[in-house]
């Protein structure tokens, strides 16, 4: 993005063009871009994994429910739902990708090898 006052720059871009982060599926599409997928390919991949349409991915009214049902982190504070690393571990499974921090958690705890936590 770039430098600028937070209201005039970050928030302006977020409102004009952004997918919407964990309010929608922006974080998930971003993760696929890190695997070198261009925008449309990344959206298609995530939509298929989530069982929604590409248009749904940036629709907060759809994604709020989808994210809660899949328990992959929601933008509002809801007790009992997956947080932080818990949510990312579920995202890694859902998208069939490696997430570095989740791999680290597995290595630290032995969870990935099926060992008791």
């Amino acid at each position: 993005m770039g430098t600028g006052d937070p209201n005039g720059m970050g928030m302006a871009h977020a409102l004009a063009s952004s997918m919407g982060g964990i309010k929608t599926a922006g974080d998930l599409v971003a993760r696929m871009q890190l695997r070198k997928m261009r925008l449309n390919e990344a959206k298609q991949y995530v939509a298929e994994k989530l069982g929604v349409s590409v248009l749904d991915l940036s629709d907060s009214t759809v994604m709020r429910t989808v994210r809660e049902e899949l328990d992959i982190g929601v933008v509002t504070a809801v007790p009992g739902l997956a947080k932080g690393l818990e949510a990312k571990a579920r995202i890694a499974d859902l998208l069939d990708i490696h997430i570095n921090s989740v791999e680290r958690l597995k290595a630290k705890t032995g969870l990935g090898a099926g060992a008791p936590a």
Partner: protein
Amino acid sequence: MSKTVTRMGDGSSVVLSRDEIRREVVEGSEAAAVKAKIPALEENEVDYLVDMFASPMRMWSVERGHEAVMTKDGGTNTLISSRLSSGIAAPIGRETAVRLFERAFAFDSMEVGHIDYSVKPSKFIVSVEQEHMELLQHTTVFPLFYGFMPNLGLYYRPDGQFENPSDLLPLGKIDAARRTQEEALEACHDDVVWQSRMFAETGADAINYDTVASTGDAEFLATLRATRTISSETDMPVEVSMAAEMVLGFHGELEYEGTRLAGLWPHQQMKLVERAGAAIFGPVVNNNSKKSCAWNVARAATFVKACTAEATIPIHPNVGNGVGGVPMFEVSPLDMVSRASAAMIEIGKADGL
């Protein structure tokens, strides 16, 4: 004929007719086409930008379904730093700031970075930086980059140990100026690789090399080599974001895999960044503050479109103050930021910003 209040590249208001706006858009696009020998915008793309700049509406946006992914440079400096990053010095720590970007601003990704943001000073406090990254990885869901500038300039005297080419060049000492850049780029490269490895260990989702080639071709070469090393030897993706639209030839003879670096334009830079193994490329198009925003946005979109037409990796053009069609002014006007934002995606076909 009706006129619209729009803006110049310095953010000041200007009143233009629809015909004048069309002329600005066409000339802006042609300016990019001539400079970089790339195609100018097509008629329907010009029409879109004319409608955009002739509209009196305060805000513009992409069409529903065309939303793209945001990556951030400068870390949380916009919230916690001073005016050097257009920051507001909010009395909060970096961890709180990152959480706010995820929850309050709904950003698609975010970056952790040292407040100075150059690799040379941040490597001395890497354990602090790693700790922030590790703690934030526990509490956040969106992808977290670690970001810094290679900033080769800090390796030259008086800040660094190498002779400054800016002192040598005016004396006609061309060979010495080249030699000192070759030595300094090795030191910069080693720091970039070392610092990047530190974050591969912490579980960072990616690394962002920002403001790349700020000191020209030697810095670009150091970054390309580091990108190749980190992309091939770790699981951590690399984003390479540029400093300016053209790579300055301070050295003039440096090459990466047979391609001379001096004078490369964004679509040419992209090919080398892609070849080095980067996951995302961030082209920059400079602003001309004496031209209108319509001229600047058309020019920027033309450069970016030439990148996205041939890229195989996501393209995230920089749209901060004074680049990508955004006016050069500390406090950014929503009407022009939103237009530059949408133009980069709808016309430039960017994958993100």
